[in-house]
């Protein structure tokens, strides 16, 4: 039965429909895979009983002819999504013991479509990080190793547990969230597909907030078609999130025609940054060649404010975080550290409950929002955000999609870059600009580095054109023929 864990979601959907195996068998195989990969630390909470009960319920629905679009598909959920009565930690000590009494809209949508939960995946604390090393529950190991080396590597972050679980064939897909690259960068590091939809496409209700003007949930899967299926199950309007957009969810699979002749692909010159490894440049050129061979037209474009995107992000995201994380005060949920007065209790709880990176960001956010600095930092950053969004608008008058590398390197060692916050922030240099502009982006595995690690290519699209992104991504996927398996299962 172990082979069941190597199927794509699409193949499992077909196998279940034909009755080749049951949801119970499929889910059982994945429950065992989750157990077998515990050394990765990809899950904070495993929910095997819920998974198997869910599988039985799914089989019963199918017998009655009520199968949904994701019927019987076992998924992992990033531990940033509130799940009813199941521990939800956001990777933080401050949410100790928190069992939400409600379900996030995105996960509820997936369960309505028939999917089954395997457990909650590890992440950087409050999704703040690019390595998964800031989690209170410890780092996650990337299922991949460099050729001939046993050094454990990071899976990227913040959705590192989700990426590792999908790459290690523990889950057919996983939810992620992306604020500045937290779906796309770990997808690239782990050799899987990660899609960040347009801001507003998936409801943020019930997802622990980091930076509300940027946060967006999306699917992490092993194929482009799987991402299309899973996004269809996650997306949709939600009256409980006032920024959720009220436009119909298209049939994403129908958009994947395989034909991109005449489509215009932009190559932004500002993404050719100093010191970029030759093999990142190489995989980018390879992607350009593949698209050209498929009949697309390659157009050189300029996104002039690209170099300001990261510093802009590191004002806006901490500012919003400092406000969002004010709610963790030891009163309503999670950790409480006693104090002599109310203020004393707040300071003791937050001092002990937050980790170093979260504290840094709350303090930066508090500083840039404080009297005297608000205009110089926060308003300045919001103005530059407008310029960055305008860069993309101008580019999309000339092109349909934009192709870039996903990250400036392959996965790095656990513990590397930990003593230099700014060096860690540079991981997101290619993903942050589109986040600031609210645009959809997808990362897919395009090849292996000289050391045998996956490298990702990123496609960026126009607002609510996820279908077109998936269409182009599938063409790249077909050309790339990425079949390599991580060491842990090969």
């Amino acid at each position, binding site marked *: 039965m172990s082979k069941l864990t190597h199927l794509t979601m699409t193949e499992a959907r077909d196998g279940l429909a034909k009755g080749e195996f049951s949801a119970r068998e499929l889910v059982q195989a994945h429950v065992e895979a989750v157990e077998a990969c515990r050394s990765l630390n990809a899950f904070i909470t495993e929910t095997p009983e819920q998974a198997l009960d869910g599988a039985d319920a799914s089989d019963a629905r199918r017998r009655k002819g009520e199968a949904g679009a994701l019927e019987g598909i076992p998924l992992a959920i990033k531990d940033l999504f509130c799940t009813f009565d199941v521990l939800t930690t956001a990777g933080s000590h401050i949410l100790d013991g*928190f*069992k939400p*009494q409600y379900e996030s809209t995105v996960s509820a949508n997936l369960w309505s479509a028939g999917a089954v939960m395997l457990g909650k995946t590890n992440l950087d604390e409050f999704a703040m990080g690019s390595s998964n090393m800031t989690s209170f529950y410890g780092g996650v190991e990337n299922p991949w190793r460099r050729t001939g080396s046993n050094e454990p590597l990071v899976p990227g972050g913040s959705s590192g547990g989700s990426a590792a679980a999908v790459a290690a064939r523990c889950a057919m897909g996983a939810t992620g969230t992306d604020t500045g690259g937290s779906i796309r960068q770990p997808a690239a590091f782990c050799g899987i597909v990660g899609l960040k939809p*347009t*801001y507003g496409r998936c409801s943020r209700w019930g997802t622990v907030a980091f930076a509300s*003007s940027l946060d967006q949930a999306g699917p992490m899967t092993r194929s482009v078609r799987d991402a299309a299926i899973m996004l269809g199950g996650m997306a949709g309007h939600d*009256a409980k999130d*006032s*920024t959720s*957009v*009220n436009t119909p969810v298209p049939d994403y699979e129908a958009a994947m025609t395989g034909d991109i002749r005449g489509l215009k692909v932009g190559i932004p010159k500002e993404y050719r940054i100093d010191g970029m490894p030759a093999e990142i440049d190489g995989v980018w050129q390879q992607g350009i060649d593949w698209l050209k061979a498929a009949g697309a037209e390659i157009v050189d474009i300029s996104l002039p*404010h690209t170099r*300001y995107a990261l*510093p*802009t992000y*590191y*004002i806006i995201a901490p500012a919003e975080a*400092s406000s969002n994380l004010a709610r963790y*005060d030891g*009163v*309503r*949920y*999670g*950790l*409480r550290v*006693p104090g*002599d*007065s*109310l*203020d*004393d*209790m*707040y*300071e003791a709880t*937050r*001092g002990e409950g*937050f980790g170093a990176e979260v*504290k*840094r960001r*709350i*303090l*930066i956010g*508090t*500083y840039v929002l*404080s009297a005297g600095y608000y205009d*110089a*930092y926060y308003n*300045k*950053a*919001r*103005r*530059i955000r*407008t*310029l960055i*969004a305008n860069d993309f608008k101008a580019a999309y008058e000339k092109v349909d999609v934009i192709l870039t590398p996903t990250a400036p390197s392959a996965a790095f060692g656990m513990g590397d870059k930990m003593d230099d*916050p*700014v060096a860690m922030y540079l991981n997101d240099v290619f993903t942050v600009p589109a986040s*600031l*502009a609210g645009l959809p982006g997808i990362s897919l595995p395009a090849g292996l580095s000289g050391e045998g690690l996956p490298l990702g290519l990123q496609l960026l699209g126009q*607002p609510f054109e996820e279908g077109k992104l998936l269409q182009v991504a599938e063409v790249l996927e077909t050309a790339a023929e990425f079949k390599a398996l991580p060491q842990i299962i090969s």
Partner: protein
Amino acid sequence: MAVDKDTVARIAHLARIRIPEEQQDALTGELTEILNWVEQLSELDTEGVEPMTSVVAMSLPQRKDAVTDGNCVDKVLKNAPEGAHGFFAVPKVVE
């Protein structure tokens, strides 16, 4: 822009986060490094550029001003570290 230890202590108090004395020097250095790095934004002329408020052009939806939720005190209090008589309990704030 360098911040000093007193400024860090003041922000930490504003944010209600206790930073032990022995961590304040290191944190002051890290925050200074980050602020120096974002300082490059000042070289860009943003005169006349509107600050972005929303990435998606949409007007905020409105709903009927009616009660749509409630009667779930038990659920609300379920995760409270301390609750009493249907309320959250905190250290004494009034003598």
